[in-house]
């Protein structure tokens, strides 16, 4: 007797299931962003970790103000500052092990530097002398990515490859709130979940994509809720609470490393500066809003915790600030030197083997440069 011949074959019933039923509840983010500072949990935090995070935050803030100043002086073509977002930047770098990989966006120079990349090499993209000034393999930091969200599938592929090779490597990918609307965000999360790839996605929700506020970007209950649709956990965290971000990232990294698959983390934060030096933020947001967020400053939040608990005295604080000043002075001095440019570089890395066409074009440029050196009179003569 076939199925269709059985009694009751045509009685209404649930359709045959394509997949086992999954309870979405464990994947759901908390209703409110997770916090540590200012809560009872803070007392349990490791003082050394707090001091380490603090020193990085102070350096990070100083790095942002120094890079912004260098932009005003014409030493950088553009600088997308992460002032106000330092907790996310620093925690992202510190949550990873040496062997892990970081996939930053254009706003994440600070995370790149906190991971150990030379500050000047990290800035060549924004200075304009070469796109990626550092060797990605030296610190396992992918190039700063400008096309929004396009770096996310790279993180998934790399994590997937590492797992196939049997390496317990985790990839941490960073993106902004605006970037979550891109197709690559969706595709990356879906691939990561299907492949159970060891990836952590960190969304820094600073409320704006240049001028466009979050409400015009999404109708989701939160960006962290998007995780549920892919079958991965979503976490919501106070992005200005360095300790909380570090803890949530650490949990996600550990879970990924242990084979537990990817996590989407939404860190709620604020960009204190304009989108870049070329942007005028007064066209889309008011001073009152900025002031509200200044009162929730990531550096001050942690500093208050440390000083109130007697974990950081004046001398220690001074030492941290001096260290940051020294870093800034070094950055200033090195950035005030003109970068060395070799126009012939343009042709050398287009292909493994330079094509005949590019060799011709390289010769053309070389001849032009030689003529330039000989001076305009000589050029006139040559042409005649």
């Amino acid at each position: 007797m076939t199925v269709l011949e059985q009694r009751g074959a045509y009685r209404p019933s649930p359709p045959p299931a394509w997949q086992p039923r999954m309870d979405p509840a464990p994947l759901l983010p908390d209703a409110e962003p997770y916090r540590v500072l200012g809560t009872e949990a803070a007392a349990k935090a490791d003082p050394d970790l707090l001091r380490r995070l603090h020193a990085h935050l102070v350096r990070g803030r100083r790095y942002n103000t120094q890079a912004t100043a260098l932009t005003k002086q014409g030493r950088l073509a553009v600088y997308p500052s992460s002032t106000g977002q330092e907790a996310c930047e620093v925690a992202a770098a510190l949550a990873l092990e040496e062997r892990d990989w970081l996939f930053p966006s254009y706003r994440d120079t600070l995370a790149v530097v906190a991971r150990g990349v030379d500050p000047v090499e990290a800035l060549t993209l924004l200075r304009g002398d070469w796109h990626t000034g550092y060797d990605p393999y030296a610190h396992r930091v992918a190039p700063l990515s400008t096309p929004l969200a396009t770096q996310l599938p790279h993180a998934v592929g790399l994590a997937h490859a590492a797992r196939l090779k049997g390496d317990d490597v985790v990839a941490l990918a960073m993106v902004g709130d605006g970037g979550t609307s891109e197709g690559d965000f969706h595709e990356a999360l879906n691939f990561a979940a299907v492949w159970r790839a060891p990836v952590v996605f960190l969304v820094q929700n600073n409320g704006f994509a240049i001028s466009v506020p979050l409400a015009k970007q999404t109708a989701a209950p939160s960006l962290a809720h998007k995780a549920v649709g892919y079958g991965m956990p979503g976490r919501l965290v106070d992005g200005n609470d360095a300790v909380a971000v570090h803890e949530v990232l650490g949990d996600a990294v550990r879970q990924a490393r242990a084979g537990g698959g990817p996590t989407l983390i939404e860190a709620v934060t604020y960009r204190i500066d304009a989108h870049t030096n070329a942007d005028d933020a007064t066209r889309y947001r008011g001073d009152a809003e900025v002031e509200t967020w200044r009162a929730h400053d990531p550096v001050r939040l942690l500093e208050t915790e440390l000083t109130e608990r007697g974990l950081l005295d004046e001398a220690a604080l001074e030492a941290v600030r001096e260290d940051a000043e020294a870093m800034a002075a070094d950055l200033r001095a090195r950035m005030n030197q003109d970068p060395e440019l070799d126009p012939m570089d343009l042709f050398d890395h287009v292909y493994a083997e330079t094509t005949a066409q590019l060799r011709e074009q390289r010769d053309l440029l070389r001849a032009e440069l030689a003529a330039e050196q000989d001076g305009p009179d000589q050029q006139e003569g040559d042409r005649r």
Partner: protein
Amino acid sequence: MTTVAVKPATMAQALTRAMRDAMAADPSVHVLGEDVGTLGGVFRVTDGLAKEFGEDRCTDTPLAEAGILGAAVGMAMYGLRPVVEMQFDAFAYPAFEQLVSHVSRMRNRTRGKMPLPITVRIPYGGGIGGVEHHSDSSEAYYMATPGLHVVTPATVADAYGLLRRSIASDDPVVFLEPKRLYWSKDTWNPEQPAEVEPIGRAVVRRTGRSATLITYGPSVPVCLEAAEAARAEGWDLEVIDLRSLVPFDDETVCASVRRTGRAVVVHESTGFGGPGGEIAARVTERCFHHLEAPVLRVAGFDLPYPPPMLERHHLPGVDRVLDAVARLQWEAER
């Protein structure tokens, strides 16, 4: 002396064999795409690979072309050699941003520190009666993107050899498979596949003295047929199969045109903004004093690819090629 059994094989079989041999030779070679695993691809070009090498080496991915290529970028960053299958020409477009903004530039961006050895296989071109979005010739988009190699075979032996070369290349290769030649047969010995020259060398498929037909991929058989037919008119046509659009083999092409003094570029892709414009310009710039006539182009019309019942009017055929040859200013000669 031992004689090897040389049996007829299809281009599709040669491509499968190329991937199989590459995977067997190098554990870092991974195939990924839509339906490439269990099914063996909609054209069956990846047939048997998942079975032989496992699903981790030949992977059915979620259905998202940007995600597939983006993931391949990350895999290549970690030392793998991904071979991506795009199901059809027009369905590779979602991956365009990854291709242009990352795949083509990563080596350059990192000053050679992070090369991406990715092969993107794309079945392309018309002539198979495909409904809308299944017959595009998209090579001009890829040619216009520095950092990519653009390769397309026209014979069974080249399909094998060029795909092996592409997979072994440390640069990204867009490997365009002329889908109407998938089932074309040729005697070919898979046990002793002939060495194919490195990517970037054109080949003279037929020697001739009167004029040069410059072509590639699906139009190669058309041009060879046209050259045969042209004998009746007294023309002895040379046919060049470019095999690689990037890098472009100026040397082979120009050596031929300098000898014949006349050239026609033939391809399915649209004429306006198509590869033929670039090729005609290159030939003119380099061989002007040897030319007896302007370089002509026989291309697809400048319109969206037509519905299958009308495609034969669009595709460059033997007659249209011969008409172009007839317009190569022979008056002076006669």
